[in-house]
């Protein structure tokens, strides 16, 4: 029973660690499916984290705080859209700029919030069910955003593969010239997809500062935005696989933490390297299969669209 309780505690922590990655990666997945490569996920997450934290600290409202995270992410995403869609800037360079800018901006905004404690978000409490041993905490005991993340995974899948707007979005990412020739508004569709990505990254960031830690620290995402980008490749642009991949990564980082706590004789720094090394490993395993990448990656990914005549 003791062991089982520990296992459940680890699983619960793993799910929490995976949740910001799920949000950010799902958002980026939709963005990339429309043909846009936004490397600014890390920046959008940071700005989302600090905005969410600031709103929670000043208003005390969890819902407002999460919404603020989403809005902040969308604000940065708008900046990205203006540059890449309207001004045809290189998407890779603009994404990098977004991350650098978001890092600086979040540090500036967060200056007065460093070290401030927060209560965190309420957890689900289903009478009877949440108090069940093992199953209670594992299935019914998470905070609400965990369930939202899982629901979004299926929502994004349904949207992309079962609805007409989803079909149009995929078409735009596959061949923007053809979509334009048929008469679809390529720029508007991409703008919407980038905004969605921004909102999701912002929520993912807010989850970190509101629930996961919960506190604000400069650069607190520690590369999670980049790991989310890698997750999209790992998932070969399929939403359900994002969920699996994120849980896998959550598992790696929680196991590293847990190993530290239980006094494994490996220096903590090496354990902390594991998520990053796992990201590299996973990228290598997926990318080597060029056929699979070719079949699943949006063909226009990262290419600017100028309606040529």
């Amino acid at each position, binding site marked *: 029973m003791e062991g089982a309780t520990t296992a459940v505690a680890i699983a619960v922590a793993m799910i929490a660690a995976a949740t910001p990655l799920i949000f950010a990666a799902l958002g980026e997945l939709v963005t990339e499916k429309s043909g846009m490569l936004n*490397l600014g996920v890390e920046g959008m997450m940071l700005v989302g984290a600090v905005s969410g934290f600031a709103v929670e600290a000043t208003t005390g409202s969890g819902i407002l705080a999460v919404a603020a995270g989403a809005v902040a992410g969308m604000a940065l995403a708008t*900046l990205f859209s*203006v*540059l890449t*869609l*309207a*001004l*045809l*800037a*290189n998407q*890779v*360079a*603009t994404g*990098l*700029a*977004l991350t*650098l*800018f*978001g*890092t*600086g*901006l979040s*540090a*500036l905004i967060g*200056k007065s919030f460093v070290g401030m404690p927060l209560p965190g978000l309420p957890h689900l409490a289903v009478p009877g069910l949440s108090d069940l041993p093992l199953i209670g905490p594992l299935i019914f005991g998470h905070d609400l955003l965990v369930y939202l993340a899982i629901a979004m995974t299926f929502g994004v899948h349904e949207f992309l593969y079962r609805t007409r707007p989803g079909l149009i979005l995929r078409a735009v990412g596959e061949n923007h010239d053809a979509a334009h020739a048929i008469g679809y*508004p390529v*720029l*508007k569709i991409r703008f919407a997809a980038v905004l969605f990505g921004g909102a999701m990254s912002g929520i993912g960031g807010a989850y970190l500062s509101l629930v996961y830690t919960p506190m604000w620290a*400069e650069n607190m995402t*520690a*590369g999670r935005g*980049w*790991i989310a*980008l*890698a997750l999209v*490749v790992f998932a070969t642009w399929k939403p359900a696989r994002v969920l699996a991949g994120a849980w896998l990564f959550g598992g790696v980082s929680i196991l590293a933490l847990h190993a530290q706590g239980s006094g494994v004789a490996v*220096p903590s*720094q*090496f354990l*902390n*390297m594991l998520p*990053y*090394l796992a*990201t*590299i490993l996973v*990228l*290598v395993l997926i*990318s*080597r299969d*060029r056929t699979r*990448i070719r079949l699943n990656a949006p063909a226009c990914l990262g290419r600017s669209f*100028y309606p040529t005549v």
Partner: protein
Amino acid sequence: MSFDAWPRLEPRGEPSPAMVWLTPVIAVAATVVSGMILFTLLGFDPVATLQAYFITPVSTRYGLAELALKATPLTLCAIGLATGFRANIWNIGAEGQLTIGAICGGGVALAAWGHEGPWLLPVMMVAGVLGGMGWAAIPAWLRVRFNASEILTSLMLVYVASLLLDYLMHGPWRDPEGFNFPQSRQFGPDALLPIIVSETRLHLGSPLALVAVFSGWLLLARSFVGFQIRVIGLTPLAAGYAGFNQRRLVWITLMIGGGLSGLAGVIEVAGPIGQLTPSISPGYGFTAIIVAFLGRLHPVGILAAALLVALSYIGGEAAQISLRLPLAVTGVFQGMLLFFLLASDVLIRYRVRLGASSHRRPAPAAQGIR
């Protein structure tokens, strides 16, 4: 929202050569204006802050030397990055390569502690360059062998490198007489770069950066390898058609980038820092991305851009001391600078038409379809 209402872009027949060098100026101007707005929002007097930020720090000889000192690692990293960016090889892990360069060079200095000689500094330099190259070799190999995105692998390795440095500082390389502070011994005099301007910290590393600028220009503008780098970056299919070996170019550009970043790392520890500490760079490797773009991926432009961006570092520190301006403003400044540059770059290939486009005519008098 309607995109039709926006000012429209019309392609120019040929890219404007004037705009290539004018857009960085426009970007700097726009950043300064936005900076003044930002200062006002933060509750500072914009003009006084601007003065404290951009003018006071470089109004002394010492200040100018500090400027060159900070520009040195930025230039080195940015030239390496630019070589890759030209070829569409997105090495964004210069920070990690710099860290490993510092570890390798610094490691040599620590290993030789007690039996030094004039041979030490060159050996440290070589070790730093090789260390940076070795670290960059990982994304190069993963890209060439497994097609893995060098953007993500090189970035992940930044975190790994800094954790490795942290481990060394807390563990095996900690100064035995350092009261448990996480830092190494002070390097001996033979492991330090000689000062070239007295009463400043300007050292021999800065002339080395100038050598890198010249070599970078020679490589990109005059050599056949540089030509191949440019072709592969502009049109990969044409490079394949001409028979340029793409894998070889991935290796070349990443080795140049890693080597120069590693050199920057060893120069930092053998220069102004003088020992290994857990934080040897205030993000030079990332800021170098901005420098590379601001300098138009051209070595001479990079030199100018590095001086400008170095000013934002020094100014940030100075304004923090004199006005208590938050240091994070520097990061915001640097990010804005790159945004404005990317935004104004559109002027090189397009001209902006305000109002209704010449391609559209007013709706005819007759009604459209219902």
